[in-house]
Structures are given as structure tokens and as C-alpha cells.
């Protein structure tokens, strides 16, 4: 294991002429829970998507567990990885989306089993048992055979978390996991995430839930306009923001 689970050095990303990430530097240690906050359009989702190479970065370096994401370095030249190698890197990284993105034609337990069986070629019996344990862990043991359309938003998001965990990732990325939920359903999802943090999972969480950041986060990063404006201990940053842009943002959401 390397010193940092995630290490970003001067990460740049543009869509056409729009520069979305303008040089992101940060490190996430193993078992750290990093919360990322910032106004809409500041590049938070884009940065998360770069970490598992759903987006290609234009400049800088991005490492997960000491390994360059999406490329192989030979001498001073970068070689793009083959699709299969990118897929192999992504297996190690779980991702939870704002809109859940469960597979609607599969039951909850089938959603969870899909990747371990199809990607890792594990035995179905073994995976089914693990899927049952995961459903139990997210409090949905009785919903194994329900289709996503039959579940509430909070239940769907908990299945999505279980689905990501079934691949035994070493890193979990959450992109506003509770933003699409009705207020009364937010708590049940955050509870599952807290438990995960207590179990020592390395997590990067884009969120507007400042209470979660304060209680669970080991670090907090405030992003605005494609750069990291301020970072540090969540309790300190939230209580005493140093930067004007951070103050302005926090005064709106707190």
C-alpha cells in the first residue's frame, strides 16, 4: 500500500474551451474520509469522475494507491491504458451517484451480484451469500427480490452502496449521494455511510450535508471555479473559514 490512497498533482480538465479543473492538488490517506463542498458547477463531479477515469485529465497526474490512473509511464512518456486495464483499475474503486443508477431490469440482489459475477468471475453461490450480508448491512435484507422501481429513493441509494461494496473496493467515491432524496430519507443513507467510515473505508464524499462533514469527515475541501480554495479539518474550516469565497459559500448553506 502506498502512502496516499489518492494523490492529485495539478490536475487540469477542460470540456472544449471550458476549463473545469484548473490545477487540483490534494492527497487522501488510507481510511480517511474527505468531504468535498463547493458551489454547483465548481467541478466537484468532474474531479470525482477523473479519479476513476470516467473522464480523461488533460494535464497533471492522478494516482490511486500509488498507481497512475488511466496511463502507464515509461521513461518520460505516458501510454494510454487499454480499455481492459482501465476496467481493472475501476474495479478497485466504488462509485455512488446522485441519481443511484441502479439497473432497473434487475432485482436488488441481482444488481449487487452483477459485477462480482460478470467482472470478477466469482462463483454465484458465494456472491449471493455476500450480497445477502451486504443487504443486511444496509438494512434491506427483506428487499432482496425487489426491483429498483419498487424501492424508495433512500432504499435505492442503499442498494447502490451495497452494489459498489460487493466489489470490495479500496476507495469509495460519493457524488452528492443524498441530493436527490426527499429530506426524510437522507438520514438512512448517511447512517450507512457513517458505518462505512467507522469500518475504515477510504471515502471521498461530495456533499452539501455539513453535519455529516463535521461529524464524520477527517478533512474538508472547499472547491470553487475549478480550484481548491481552502482545505483542512472540517470542524475548523466550518467554524472559522479563512477565505472570503469559503465564507460566502458557507453563509449560504449553513
Amino acid at each position, binding site marked *: 500500500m502506498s502512502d496516499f490512497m489518492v494523490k492529485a498533482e495539478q490536475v487540469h480538465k477542460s470540456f472544449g474551451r471550458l476549463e473545469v479543473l484548473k490545477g487540483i492538488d490534494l492527497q487522501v490517506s488510507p481510511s480517511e474520509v474527505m468531504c468535498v463542498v463547493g458551489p454547483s458547477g465548481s467541478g466537484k463531479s468532474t474531479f470525482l469522475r477523473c479519479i*476513476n477515469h*470516467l473522464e480523461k485529465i488533460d494535464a497533471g497526474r492522478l494516482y490511486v494507491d500509488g498507481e497512475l490512473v488511466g496511463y502507464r509511464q515509461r521513461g518520460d512518456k505516458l501510454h494510454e491504458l487499454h*480499455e*481492459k486495464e482501465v*476496467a*481493472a483499475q*475501476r*474495479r478497485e*474503486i*466504488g*462509485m455512488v*451517484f*446522485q*441519481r*443511484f*443508477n*441502479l*439497473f*432497473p*431490469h434487475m432485482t436488488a440482489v441481482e444488481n449487487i451480484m*452483477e*459485477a462480482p459475477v*460478470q*467482472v470478477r468471475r466469482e462463483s454465484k453461490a458465494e456472491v449471493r451469500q455476500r450480497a445477502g450480508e451486504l443487504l443486511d448491512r444496509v438494512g434491506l435484507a427483506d428487499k432482496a427480490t425487489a*426491483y*429498483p*422501481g*419498487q*424501492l*424508495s*429513493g433512500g432504499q*435505492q441509494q442503499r442498494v*447502490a452502496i451495497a*452494489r*459498489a461494496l460487493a*466489489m470490495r473496493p479500496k476507495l469509495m467515491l460519493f457524488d452528492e449521494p443524498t441530493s*436527490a*432524496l*426527499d429530506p426524510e430519507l437522507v438520514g438512512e443513507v448517511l447512517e450507512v455511510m457513517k458505518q462505512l467510515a467507522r469500518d475504515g473505508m477510504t471515502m471521498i464524499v461530495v456533499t452539501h450535508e455539513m453535519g455529516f462533514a463535521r461529524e464524520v469527515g477527517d478533512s474538508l475541501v472547499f472547491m470553487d471555479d475549478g480550484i481548491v480554495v481552502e482545505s483542512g479539518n472540517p470542524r475548523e474550516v466550518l467554524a472559522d473559514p479563512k477565505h472570503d469565497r469559503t465564507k460566502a459559500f458557507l453563509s449560504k448553506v449553513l
Partner: protein
Amino acid sequence: MTTSTQPRGRPEAIRAVPVRHPGRWLAAAVIAVLVAMAVNTLVYNPRFNWPEQFQYLFAPPVLTAVVNTIWLTAAAMVGGTVFGVVLALMRMSPNPILRAASWFYLWVFRGTPLYTQLLIWGAIGALFPTVSLGIPFGPEFVTWQTQALISAAIAASVGLILNEAAYMAEIVRAGILSVDRGQHEASGALGMTRMQTMRRIVLPQAMRVIIPPTGNETIAMLKNTSLVAAIPFYELTFAAQNIYARTYQVIPMLIMAVLWYLALSSILMIGQYYLERHYGRSERTPTVARDQAGE
């Protein structure tokens, strides 16, 4: 006591004079006259020659032709769908060569009449008298006579499959595009390759969009098989022509073919009805997800 819920009693039911529809009566009269005329012709015009028709309806040469029409339709649709999926995947591939090749194929096969294409398949032996197995532009190991190798049945199936694939490719592509982008991302993030994502996640969901037009294509194909008389291949229309060339009973034999086509397409329409009902079900769609993501 019992009147307390209905203190004033139930008001008198409305008995209004209904609106008159004189147009309906007029239409009914016109249609009735037309139907009477048609029945009169069918029954009393001896040139329909019903006795002969019933004699031929289940005659062995006609039944052979019916069987050929059925398997040709099935082969064309199965082959066309499989090849159509390949063409659709090529069309959406990140590889620009594959995209261009697929585009060119669709351009040719959708831009020319099926009948002309079938004539070409029937005459392919004139273009390539022999077929050889060997190294391109190098030595040849085995050589066959094309006419011997490609029977009318093969030419007919290949002609219909290649044409149908071009249309199915567009149907499949529309189906794939109908699946939410988030599905690709979720399976990609789980470490699935593009092909696994297509096969396991996207295509099963695309079926809802692909199935209904495919039913229409199948019914159209049943009728298009009549064009392989161009090759010529022995199917229903060709059989009717064959018989009336001998007996001069042109209209009776064509009506016999019409009855068979109607019977077969009715069966397909019933099948389509049930398939659409099956795939139109909404209980498996993530309505909750859509409602919740109020973006």
C-alpha cells in the same frame, strides 16, 4: 334517521334528447351497399372460381410454398436482427473505421430497392462465376462454381438478411440511445467493459424500444418475401404464378395467396400484441428514481 345523509333525496335522473348523427347513418348506408356489391361479385362472378381455389388452398405445392415463406421470413428476421445489432454497435463504436463502414453499408442497402438487390443476388453467379478459398490476391486452394454453391434458397435468405440488417441496425441504435447515460457510467464504474455493459445492461433495457418496431418489420418481411420471386425462389407468390401459368386461373390463384398472407400476418399481429403488452409493462421501470431526481 336514515334520511340524514341525503336530506333532500336524489335528484331526478337527466333524460336529455341525444345529439343526432345523420352522418353515421349515411356512412352506414353507403358501406352497406358497397359490401352487398362485393359479396354479390364474390358469390356470383364465376371467374373467382371458388371450387378450384379451395382445391388449391391446401395442395402440396402450395403448402411447400407456404412453408418456404414462413422459414424465409424467420431466417431473414433472425439473421437481420443479429447482423443489425453488429451494425448498430459498429455505428456507435469509438473506432472511426467501423463507424464509417457501418454508415456506408446502411447508405447502400437503405438507398436501393429490395427488388433490385434481390435481382442482383439471383444473378450473382454471372458476376462471380467461381468462389475460391485462398489468400486475398494470392494463391487459391479450393474453387467452387457459384451457381452450384449458392442455391436459390441461400440467395433469397442472404438477400433479405442483408437488406433487413440495415433497417434493424437503426432500430437497435434507437433502442440503445434510449437507455440513460447513467447506466453506462454505473456499469463502467463497476469495472465492466463496453461489451459487457452492452450485453448485460444496455441491450436488455433497449428491448422495450426495439421490440415494437421489430414486430412491424416481421410483418413487413412476411410480405417482402414475395419479392424473392426475382431470384427466383419458390415461395407463396411464385407458387401462385407457377400454377396460373399452367391453369390460367390468375385471379383465383392470387386470391389464394392473399388468403394465406392474411392468415400468416394475422398470427404475427396477435403475437405482436402480446409482446408489446409484455414489454410495455411499467412495474420494472424506476419511476421512483425519476421522481426523486428532480433535476
